[in-house]
């Protein structure tokens, strides 16, 4: 893609999200989301292969439907209450409709079916943008909706955690695994939103860091299948040692950073007398942990069945900038001991 076009699209992505962040009117927020959707479409289709075109088409349909529903909800709210302000979405019907529209935007269950197929058709960089950046604008809006009845959020969250774990169970394609991982993590974030929005933010930022480091690792090793993970030890041995820690952090195991949001969310749910829901969520995250462990096992704990002496690749200096990966991997692994500082940052 021409550099000028590429930079225009990237700037548009930034513009869309920033517009949504800065808006208080539903029209402006919706416009920001639309700019985001339209800016990523050419990025998804830059490789002219049928799977990418299919992924783009499915993404466009899902996002257009969600955008239309969102606009309808905003207009209905204005009709019923006379308010265009994002914070003033008080009517139960419009609040539920908005929540469902935004849930479809970010790929929460049961409106998640587009996500794995779309991720499978993209290259890893575009998949990274889809999993991280494209979640920010809808999340900003979900954060500002204050429903009276938290049942919708609890249902969406719990379903997403279960579906995200169950769906990724039998996948061998890494992009689909990451899609289901995204669904599960979003479920955790939505689950706690009615009770403690700062924890949602904490979970979101932790998820963004962990996903970024995992995607970057897979991009460096140039692998999209679980089979080809087993040869990564010959390409970048250091990364082969770090990636299991990133994966286990995604799985929420202590003493890694990923444990922090899950721990605090479970604690908060228990305080809200929702212990059964907390138990279900914790048990469902074991499914996700299973496939993270499977990836770690394949990458680090096994040797590939080929003859290593005949197929060792040249170890050249990496052409990609590895500093972002180094930073995010460090924060993904080592941030748990400074939990009080992080809590103070988010709850002050």
């Amino acid at each position: 893609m021409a550099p000028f076009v590429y930079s225009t699209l990237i700037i548009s992505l930034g513009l869309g999200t920033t517009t949504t962040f800065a808006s208080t009117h539903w029209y402006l927020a919706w416009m920001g989301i639309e700019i985001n959707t339209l800016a990523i479409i050419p990025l998804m289709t830059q490789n002219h292969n049928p799977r990418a075109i299919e992924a783009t088409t499915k993404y466009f349909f899902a996002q257009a439907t969600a955008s239309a529903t969102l606009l309808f909800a905003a207009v209905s709210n204005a009709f019923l209450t006379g308010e265009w302000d994002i914070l003033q979405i008080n009517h139960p019907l419009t609040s539920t409709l908005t929540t469902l529209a935004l849930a479809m935007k970010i790929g929460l269950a049961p409106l998640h079916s587009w996500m794995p197929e779309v991720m499978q058709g993209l290259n890893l960089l575009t998949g990274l943008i889809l999993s991280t950046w494209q979640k920010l604008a809808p999340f900003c809006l979900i954060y500002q909706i204050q429903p009276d009845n938290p049942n919708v959020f609890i249902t969406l969250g719990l379903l997403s955690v279960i579906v995200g774990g169950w769906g990724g169970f039998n996948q061998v394609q890494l992009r689909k695994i990451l899609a289901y991982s995204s669904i599960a993590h979003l479920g955790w974030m939505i689950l706690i939103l009615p009770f403690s929005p700062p924890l949602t933010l904490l979970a979101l930022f932790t998820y963004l860091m962990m996903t970024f480091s995992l995607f970057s690792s897979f991009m460096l090793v140039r692998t999209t299948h679980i089979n080809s993970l087993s040869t990564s030890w010959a390409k970048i041995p250091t990364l082969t040692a770090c990636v299991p820690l990133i994966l286990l952090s995604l799985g929420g195991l202590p003493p890694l950073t990923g444990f922090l949001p899950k721990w605090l969310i479970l604690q908060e749910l228990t305080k809200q007398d929702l212990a059964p829901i907390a138990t279900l969520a914790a048990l469902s995250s074991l499914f996700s942990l299973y496939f993270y462990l499977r990836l770690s096992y394949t990458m680090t704990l096994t040797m590939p069945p080929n003859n290593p002496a005949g197929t060792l690749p040249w170890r050249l200096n990496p052409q990609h900038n590895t500093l972002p990966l180094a930073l995010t991997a460090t924060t993904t692994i080592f941030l748990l001991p400074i939990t009080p500082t992080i809590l103070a940052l988010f709850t002050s």
Partner: protein
Amino acid sequence: MSLPTISRVPASGLLRSIRDLRWLLRSIAPLATPRRALTQMGYRRPGQPREDKPPWWRVKFDLSKGLKGMKRHFTLLKEEFFAQFIGPMGKPIIEHMLEQNQVLWEFRGPHSLQEWTISCDREIGGKSEIYLKVGRNNETCLLYGTLCSDPPKDGETRYSGYCTMRAKQPLASFDRKRYHDWSSFNTLHLRIRGDGRPWMINVIAETYYTHQKDDMYSYFLYTRGGPYWQDVKIPFSKFFLAHRGRVQDDQHELWLDKINAIGFTLGDKADGPFQLEIDFIGVCKDYAHTEDFAYEKYKRNPEV
């Protein structure tokens, strides 16, 4: 042939009194050759009467067939459900991690021919013939026949002379499409014995849009005549994209995660008998082959 001159056209005042203008138009311009719509399914030979039967008349309703079908489909559904507990695609994960070779089609008996379909230009009025049978000792399959390049005399077809064999689309329960996932592999491995003719191997991947339904990825298979078997290994990076037999300018690599079928086509314009014996068709992973795509992806509108 020159067009009729304008002087043969009656004066415009008289045209209004003429109700049937067809005889007039016929003399002025030749009728346009009828063209088939791109979305028209199937091929109707010129001169063949159209089928005016509604779809429900073409189906033969039979209770016993229906009951057998239901039993088959529910059995498949049960197998699919329990296969999820074994691993991805019904295989344990350790098999996914360790596999480097997989035999997809192995011709060991008449039942293996059920997965294949053969076709030649006889359907469009040509004179080729193609047959498929099990080879000696039920160990191979033999594709044989006669190629004839004479086009059918229907006034429409200009070229002819092809014979092809294609695997049927794998189906899950209730006739849902199932796909081959060859993303663990990067090479096609065949064991064949030919007669020296050049064949074309076609891989058909799943597409999304209707206008992509005739897309296929092709590569050549040059056979050696002779009694010795030939092990052919073709990397998937060598397959190029063609649509309805025409090689496309905008090329891309074959995505191996959803493959529908594989086929062999003979169309070398050499009339006469042909034979191709196939032992097995499989896929393998060659770790030494690191090429993504063999052809350049040209920019169609390069910056000047």
